[in-house]
């Protein structure tokens, strides 16, 4: 009887191992290849854009939810004097504030702006999540959202970099977008401004910036690959 139990458990363990191994293998099964050699699953630019746009839409959705929660529970007075002078730490980044301005901007510039924004928000969001998890005013749901948000910024940045690579490879974009290697250079030197921001202002600023990123990506997509859903 013990022999049977042992063999049964060994069989189960083997089965579980197989399942997990195949799962892991399947995750690795479809890498995005920069060069189209055989066996590599190559994604088209339109496809890449769609994925990135979806990701940014989701990120914006989460930031919107968190901002609404903040507004509901910690409603700052709307008649605050000085509210107009809210200053997002990304306000130094020059972003087009209208359709014409955005369309007039070159693809490289626009891509650059997007990447700048994404880079600028990586640290503040991480710290925001840390501060939220320590405070007990928020439930776990909000804390999870903050964590997800900060992860998504990082993933979106990776995705956008991939898109830029693809565009450079296709010759659509010039190779002048070299800030990818060291994006920290793009940041203003005084990058600790965000530490002074209150949580609510931080959420407000990020909600806006995520919307900007999404919109710029859509404009880029419809400019470069216009046939798919534009």
């Amino acid at each position, binding site marked *: 009887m013990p022999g049977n139990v042992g063999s049964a458990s060994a069989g189960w363990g083997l089965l579980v191992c197989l399942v997990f191994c195949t799962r892991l293998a399947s995750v690795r099964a479809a890498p995005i290849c920069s060069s189209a050699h055989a066996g590599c699953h190559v994604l088209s630019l339109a496809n890449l854009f769609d994925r990135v746009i979806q990701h940014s839409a989701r990120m*914006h959705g989460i930031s919107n939810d968190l901002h609404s929660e903040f507004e509901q529970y910690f409603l700052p007075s709307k008649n605050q004097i000085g509210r*107009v002078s809210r200053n997002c730490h990304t*306000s130094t980044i020059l972003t087009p*504030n209208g*359709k014409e301005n955005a369309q007039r901007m070159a693809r490289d510039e626009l891509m650059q702006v997007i990447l700048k924004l994404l880079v600028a928000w990586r640290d503040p969001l991480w710290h925001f999540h840390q501060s939220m998890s320590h405070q007990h005013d928020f439930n776990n749901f909000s804390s999870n959202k903050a964590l997800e948000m900060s992860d998504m910024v990082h993933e979106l940045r990776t995705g956008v970099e991939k898109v830029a690579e693809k565009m450079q490879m296709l010759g659509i974009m010039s190779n002048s977008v070299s800030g990818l290697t060291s994006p920290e250079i793009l940041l203003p030197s005084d990058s600790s401004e965000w530490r002074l921001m209150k949580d609510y202002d931080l959420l407000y600023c990020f909600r*806006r910036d995520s919307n900007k990123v999404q919109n710029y990506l859509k404009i880029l997509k419809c400019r470069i690959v216009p046939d798919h859903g534009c």
Partner: protein
Amino acid sequence: MKNMVVVGVLLLSLMPHANGAGFSPPGKPTLTSCRSPEKETFTCWWEPGSDGGLPTTYRLFYLKENIETVYECPDYLTAGENSCFFSKNNTSIWVNYNITVVATNELGSTMSDPVDIDVMYIVMPHPPEKVLVSVLEDKDWPFLRVSWEPPQKADTRSGWITLVYEVRIKLEEKDDWEVHLAGQQRVFNIFSLLSGGTYIVQVRCKPDHGFWSEWSSSTYVKVPNYFHRENSVWILITTFTAFIFLIVSWMIHMNRHSLKHCILPPVPGPKIKGFDKQLLKSGKSGDVFNALVASDFPPTTPPRCEDLLVEYLEVYIPEERELMREESKHLQDGFLKSEGFASDSDSGLGSCNSHTLLMDNSGEAKETDRRTDQERSRPGAEALTYAREDVSPDMSSGRVKTWPSVFSPLTPYSSGPTDQPGAKQHCLSDSVYPPGSTSPCSAQDLGLNYWEFCFSSMQPHLTQTRSDVNVSDIGPERAAARQQSPAPRPTEYVEVQRVSEEDMVLLQPVGPGPGPPARPGEDYSRVKGVRGHNVLLLQTEEEADGRACEELETKGAAHKPTACSHGGLPAPGRAAPAASGYVDTAMFVLPSC
């Protein structure tokens, strides 16, 4: 002077009136809403407060985010009254506007509450345009295809704004709308339509973060009648079938009993006394037959009338000799049946076979006994034995039950001739009860019946035994018959002449010719019991009083003294009882044909 005083009074009176006659600074206006149709321009509307009775002007001022300069509304006219229109040049997305309306009249000005807006979140597009609804067919089933265009001003081509759409439809006369979310596509199909109905279709749109537009203007569409011809035919067929089905099921219901008998006839159970169905179901045939043997052979308790009158005595004519060579196990049944020769039922066949078998097997055993008994009983065995018989209540059928062990087969019978096609075989009934015990059946239960024996010319012994069985031929006649070499006689019958009160049957031989012989005497003795398999205990008249009762034996049964109290045997004492009161059962060999 007086005029001046009057004027002064008038003026004085007028002045306060002028102040209290509703002239006041304007009331506080309210910004009702600001909307942008395409995320490139926007308009704000306000609601004026009371005007204080004086002409009031309204001005809108706004502050942009992080800019100290206060700007005034660039366009008060485009959007109508009490509105301010911000053109493209004046509109910045992702910029916070702080807007205030100021109402001013002669007496003062009043500021409204400021409102913060971001154009990004106040987008409310125009309704979709060019809504077209067409009726298409999908394998004879029509459906609606709704198509539309985004509002002209919303720039979806450049990706600046993304719209999602919603379609709603309802029947013209109904009130409930059916709403469908269409996503970003511009075509939508609607199925499951009412044949011949008129529908109203509307579409609206919304940016991914913003407000729903107004519903587009109604589009009317009529669905053609597609269901007509198929529907009526199928309805007729369905109704007709249902009707027939109802009738048939009702008829079946009325006749369910007869149907049940027809389809599932009742299974005849084994009507064998002592046969246990449960044992048979358990599958052990040995147990079944052992139970039969152990329980009821010989019966230890006086059987009730109902038990005795279970089965019929039937006599039948066997077709082949093989019927007589049955399995030995039938022997233990102890069942013998005689069939009425007029009856042709099959139920007696088996028992007839078993009867023959019984006679076969016991023939050898009894033969020696018979011979010895014959010597013994010859000198004076005058006792007659007759079997108690159980007669079925159905007297008209002429059936009589007899006790099988009374009769033992003849040896030649057992080895016997193989062809007696035409001969009748006498089968004995299966009812067995301890001899000597008072049968609960009264004489009335036993009816007059005749009992037929078959005599075969080829079996001389039969005739001998037959004559032995004859009640009427008692005494010397019998002895003579015994001593005689049995001459083959033609088929002879023994007739039960009458049944006495104490369950005794008078037998008399029936000659080859018709008609029973003269009434026999009334010498008879009662069977007291059975010993062994082939010994019959008879009770003589003298012993009837009591003495021979001690010798009464039943096979494994309790003593029944009551049986011995039977008295009144009408025998005139003609026959001297045997010394031991035994009568050789060999005398009662049952002839077989």
